[in-house]
């Protein structure tokens, strides 16, 4: 029909042009030329395809995403963790509840745990497989012992994967090598998908014919007939549309691939390439990752029924998704088990037993992407200092971070739970928050919350909300003052009285207290713990705004700091992470400790690329810092932070400082225990007013966090040159413990009061104190 139409047209035309010529010679010439051109084109096309195949196969075959890990949990006698947090941690690391004797399982009864670790290659060496037993009692590990495996008083669990940095095509995979794959996997794969894999040359015409016949007989597609090589080519190089041209290309490329490469090479690539599922925008490729994704287990540990399921899923990963369609998946798996039996891979007893087993799929993927977007954001910014984006996306790097999942969980809960109960109406809806938690003595960032919805990967307030810090600056003003012990001590009277500053250009500045009242003379420690504004500004002006600025810079602030006197009331803006950096030095006796999110980066094979080590740098006199720590503890016990103890157990000694800016636009709290330093911020993105102060906004978030975490009290070691003395601040004299107005206060040697007051109130030595002259 098609043929006849053009020829009849030609018939009508040709007689006029060349009446004598018949159509035969012309036709053959045409056919000859066309085939010649066709052959040349085909040859060219083949050369092109060959180049495509070799270039893709020769170079790096896969772009492998970088993996980001949480800190590994260290288990030892005395380790601080609650039983529920330990269980959560185990789940996050992909452990399953079980008998505790198979690698990757644990058993819990009450506070008693038996854990079988899988072992893990850390940057500093292999942590071998072990079976552990321990008890968690009063939030601490006890009776820790290694039941089997190499003995050690301390063991690291394998770390949880908390993120990945993916290639632009969003394919995720864990590369496996043929030698490390259980032998049953490739043999099963061949039994089901391509029995003659080792014999054919890339395509198997007989199989195709057989498949076609089967399909015609069944009236639907029941067999594919594609070889593994063809499937690989299809996934690797071609689009998904089903055209004849594509089929031709597929066959041609399969032949070429087989021509160039060993069967083992092709098989290994197939095992890593095959598409086996989807997690959001991320595709699950290869058996290595699929094993983790569906079973939470390493490929080498899979049992035959699990291998059968994965191989069965090759045919249709979403149709046979075992989490969504367990019945279909079971049917398919059992079919594969029967094929295995038929092919002699397993005997009939084992096959029957395997068919009777449940699917054994973990309830949820052991790792879900983007669980901690704010934290990963900070990790990526730190990585960007040393690594190129394209390497992170393709080189399969392993990034070991400092994230502590239990602390992160507590911080997220503190933010979301508290924010819903602060303020009211429209203001409540508009409230946002951020939180940073670090390990006090190492500067490791343990948790980061970027907003009220911690799962939302948008504006990261912990890093990008630069807000005035308000009274958070005051400890640094007093620190600078107390570094001059001949002028300032904790009991030095400071003036809580208003004044006006007049600038050269005629502008006037008149700072006020938050409560608008003035108290006359107050001792310095009280001025700080009650956060009075007027004494802070007076002391700051006395020692010099530039000195305060130097102090802030010494404590790690690198952003610009204005030298206007209003900076003494915290007009200087910072983000919560910078505040945490700055407070690190206060929490650690004057040692600036750079914040870190990354411990190590290794390449895919475990070779170390970078280490980010602990650093300390003494930037302030430990004696003066100790005095500030005293007043910051007082803040929690008697001052603006005392409402923390509505939530936090009384035995937990803490130190901290509130911060509030005009009209409650920013509510801050920064403080620390013996183990942790935490900074919280509450405010509105539009910088609008709220009814909150540091004590009623950020502090409840902070306290809610602290109350959830088992930890050590803050109790600083008294530094050289500091003595605790009973003093009567009002009388500026040493006194006895039980006298009226007696307070035990740390003093730097040489700055003690020179007179003594008895309980009856008699001054025992009448010497005019050196400090009295200072404030005249």
């Amino acid at each position, binding site marked *: 029909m098609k043929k006849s139409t053009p020829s009849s047209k030609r018939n009508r035309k040709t007689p006029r042009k060349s009446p004598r010529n018949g159509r035969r010679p012309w036709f053959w010439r045409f056919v000859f030329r066309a085939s010649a051109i066709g052959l040349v084109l085909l040859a060219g096309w083949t050369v092109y395809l060959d180049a495509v195949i070799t270039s893709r196969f020769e170079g790096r075959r896969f772009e492998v995403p970088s993996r980001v890990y949480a800190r590994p949990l*260290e288990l*030892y*006698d*005395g*380790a*601080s963790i*609650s*039983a*529920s947090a330990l*269980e*959560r941690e185990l*789940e996050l690391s992909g452990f399953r*509840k079980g008998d505790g004797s198979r690698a990757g399982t644990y058993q819990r*009864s*009450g*506070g008693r745990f038996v854990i079988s670790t899988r072992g893990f290659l850390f940057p*500093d060496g292999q942590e071998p497989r072990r079976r552990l037993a321990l008890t968690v*009692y*009063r939030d601490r590990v*006890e*009776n820790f012992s290694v039941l089997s495996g190499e003995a050690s*008083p*301390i063991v690291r669990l394998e770390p949880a994967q908390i993120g990945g940095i993916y290639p632009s095509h969003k394919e995720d995979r864990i590369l496996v090598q043929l030698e490390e794959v259980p032998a049953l996997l490739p043999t099963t794969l061949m039994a089901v998908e391509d029995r003659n894999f080792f014999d054919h040359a890339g395509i198997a015409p007989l199989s195709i014919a057989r498949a076609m016949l089967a399909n015609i007989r069944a009236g639907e597609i029941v067999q594919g007939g594609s070889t593994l090589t063809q499937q690989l080519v299809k996934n690797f190089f071609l689009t998904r549309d089903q055209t004849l041209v594509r089929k031709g290309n597929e066959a041609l490329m399969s032949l070429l691939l087989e021509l160039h490469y060993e069967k083992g090479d092709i098989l290994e690539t197939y095992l890593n390439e095959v598409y086996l599922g989807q997690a959001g925008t991320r595709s699950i490729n290869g058996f290595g990752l699929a094993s983790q994704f569906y079973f939470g287990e390493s490929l080498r540990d899979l049992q035959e029924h699990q291998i059968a399921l994965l191989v069965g899923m090759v045919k249709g990963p979403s149709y046979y998704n075992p989490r969504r369609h367990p019945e279909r998946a079971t049917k398919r798996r059992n079919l594969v088990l029967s094929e295995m039996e038929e092919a002699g891979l397993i005997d009939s007893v084992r096959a029957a037993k395997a068919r009777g087993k449940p699917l054994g799929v973990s309830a*949820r993927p052991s790792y879900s992407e983007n669980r901690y977007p704010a934290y990963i954001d900070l990790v990526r910014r730190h990585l960007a200092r040393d690594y190129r984006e394209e390497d992170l996306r393709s080189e399969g790097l392993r990034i070991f971070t400092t994230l502590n999942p239990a602390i992160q969980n507590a911080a*997220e809960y*503190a933010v979301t*739970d508290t924010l819903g109960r602060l303020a009211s109406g429209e203001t409540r809806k508009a409230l946002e928050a951020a939180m940073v938690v670090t*390990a006090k*003595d*190492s500067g490791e960032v343990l948790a980061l919350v970027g907003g009220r919805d911690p799962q939302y990967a948008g504006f990261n307030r912990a890093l990008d909300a630069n807000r005035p810090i308000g009274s958070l600056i005051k400890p640094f003003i007093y620190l600078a003052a107390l570094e001059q012990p001949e002028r300032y001590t904790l009991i030095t009277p400071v003036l809580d009285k208003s004044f006006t500053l007049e600038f050269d250009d005629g502008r006037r500045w008149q700072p006020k207290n938050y409560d608008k009242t003035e108290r006359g003379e107050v001792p310095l420690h009280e001025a700080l713990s009650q956060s009075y504004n007027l004494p802070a500004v007076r002391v700051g002006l006395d020692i010099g705004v530039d000195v305060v600025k130097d102090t802030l810079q010494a404590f790690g602030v690198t952003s610009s700091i204005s030298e206007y006197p209003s900076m003494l009331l915290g007009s200087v803006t910072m983000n919560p992470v910078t505040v945490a950096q700055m407070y690190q030095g206060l929490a650690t006796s004057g*040692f600036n400790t750079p914040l870190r999110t990354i*411990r190590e980066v290794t390449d895919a094979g475990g070779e170390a690329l970078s*280490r980010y*080590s602990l650093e*300390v*740098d*003494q930037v302030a006199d*430990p004696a003066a810092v*100790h005095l500030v*720590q*005293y007043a910051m*503890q007082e803040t929690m*016990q008697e001052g603006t932070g005392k409402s923390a103890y509505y939530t936090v157990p009384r*035995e*937990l*000694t803490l*130190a901290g400082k509130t911060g509030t800016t005009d009209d409650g636009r920013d509510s801050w709290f920064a403080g620390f225990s*013996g183990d942790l330093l935490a900074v919280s911020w509450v405010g509105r993105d539009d910088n609008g007013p709220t009814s909150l102060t540091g004590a009623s906004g950020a502090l409840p978030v902070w306290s*809610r966090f602290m*109350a959830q975490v*088992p*930890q*050590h*009290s803050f*109790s600083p*070691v*008294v*530094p050289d040159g500091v003595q605790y003395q009973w003093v009567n601040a009002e009388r500026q004299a040493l006194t006895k413990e039980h006298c009226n107005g007696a307070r*035990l206060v*740390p003093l730097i040697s040489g700055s003690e009061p020179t007179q003594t007051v008895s309980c009856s109130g008699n001054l025992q030595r009448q010497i005019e104190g050196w400090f009295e002259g200072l404030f005249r």
Partner: protein
Amino acid sequence: MNTRFLIYSATAAAFLGLAGCASAPGESIYVPAGSSRAEAPEPPEASSKDDKPRVWRKSEQPEVSEPAEPAPRSSSPSYRDAGDSLSPAAISLIREADNLLAQGDAPAAIARLERAQRIAPRSAEVYFKLSEAYVASDQLGTAEQFTLKGLSLAGSNARLQRSGWLLLADIRRARGNVAGADQAEARAANL
């Protein structure tokens, strides 16, 4: 080399009887999380619904006596005379680090010591050991800082004070700071 030898002997002195001093005065006070009310619920992703209540079987009862509860504190700021002593876990990591140092592998020793530092962040010994490892890798500035950090936790422990100041004197001398070294040595001598 002479300096190194001195440093090693100083810290070796500090570590004599390491395991022996079990309880220094003023150990950190551990406070379990407050009421269960205060604890965060399972995150929505977690799936451990069969949380069993905390029931002790007789055989599993831990054999420790109830730890003495700290007396309800008077509301005055807390302080203490010395840092924490080392736990057996920290000691084992430090021993491993010692072996690595002896083999000349300072980077691996530092990695081990940072692990020890994380679980014993308030023990002077860990910082002195870090200092020693940085001396071995010729980073004297870093070593000096870790010595100072250790000294800030030594408190009234004369043994730790002495080895810390001697270590500091050696490092300062090696860095050419003779006056600072003499000063540190004098501090050690006064203890």
